[in-house]
């Protein structure tokens, strides 16, 4: 048996790890890359490496290892995207193809129950917090623009958002 074979992990173990961590890993990668396809690519590379080298990783460290490898893949992709985007922008006369802040993802990664839980939590928020959440996440405005629109100090907007997010995160509960 070769060294490579010895390092390979059982397919069933990989499948179990995939079921357990794939959604979270994909979200993490999406947060880094803001591109669903690129996130999927990075995740695929990470799992491919897990298949090849997973046997050498401690069982309790597998999740962290997977995220680390995926993150490196993501950064490499990001650098490539940045270079390509720069070239395209030059060709296109400076038209930016960068995603909008908090841009809408290409693939939604949430379950119905999660949305329902968050919807109920949103309804319970004080109106002033809900407004900030809506403007930030749904309308994708910057905090500065929200402060200007609501005629509030930026700090107040940030505090409202932070408080609202803490409540919404608690609503996610079991998804953590």
């Amino acid at each position, binding site marked *: 048996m070769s060294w490579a074979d010895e390092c390979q992990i059982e397919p069933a173990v990989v499948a179990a790890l995939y079921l357990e961590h794939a959604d979270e890993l994909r979200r993490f990668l999406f947060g880094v890359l803001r591109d669903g396809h690129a996130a999927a690519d990075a995740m695929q590379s990470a799992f491919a490496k897990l298949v090849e080298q997973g046997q050498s990783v401690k069982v309790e460290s597998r999740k962290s290892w997977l995220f680390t490898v995926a*993150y490196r893949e993501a950064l490499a992709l990001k650098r490539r995207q940045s270079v390509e985007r720069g070239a395209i922008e030059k060709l296109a006369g400076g038209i930016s193809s960068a995603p909008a802040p908090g841009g809408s993802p290409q693939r*939604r990664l949430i*379950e119905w129950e*999660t949305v329902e*839980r968050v919807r109920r939590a949103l309804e319970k928020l004080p109106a*002033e917090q809900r407004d900030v959440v809506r403007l930030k996440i749904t309308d994708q405005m910057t905090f500065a623009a929200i402060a200007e629109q609501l005629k509030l100090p930026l700090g107040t907007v940030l*505090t409202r958002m*932070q408080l609202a997010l803490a409540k919404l*995160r608690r609503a996610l509960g079991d998804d953590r």
Partner: protein
Amino acid sequence: MSDERPLTDARRETDADWLAFRYQAGEMSADETAEFERLLGDNQPAREALARAVLLSEAVAAAATGSQAIETPNHVRRPIGRAMTWGQRLAWTALGAAASLVFAWGLDATRGARQAGHPASPADDLSGLAIQWRAAGDFNAGDFNADDFNADDDNDVAAAVDHDACDSSTDNHSAVAVRDSSDDLAAPDWLLAAVGEKQMPPMGKTDGD
């Protein structure tokens, strides 16, 4: 605004989440971004916080824009889809049944009225059939005029079919063309038999006979 009290322990606990949210929302300066990305390189809680921030933003966006915009995993989508489909199916089935009844009643009433006022002759039906057949067979419109049909003479229908399917000037090609050009519009057996009788000399007979 009782909620806007100073944040204390709870705030510190969620610092990673707040940083992660700002990062994924593009609300960090370049320096902060670089710092947070260094953190992501070796801090698993920070990575998980980023995954949570993405999930939260997704869930809020989905909740705000409507559930139909959500792409859920198959194991979630199927039961929901099935529940909705059954309800919709039931409604559509009931609506379809009602519409069928109304249509059938209306058709029956119309036929009754026609039979009472203007009795339709068999030739009417045959003319209609011929019209449909010719139309479906992509006949030359110039060769066809529905007004040429005499409602009192059923032979006009047969003559029209003969004309299209077995024009003597084209030998048997017309009949073949009907079958070739549209298999689902193949001429009926009786028509082919009639064509055969008309064009093929009887067996055993010769010109000299």
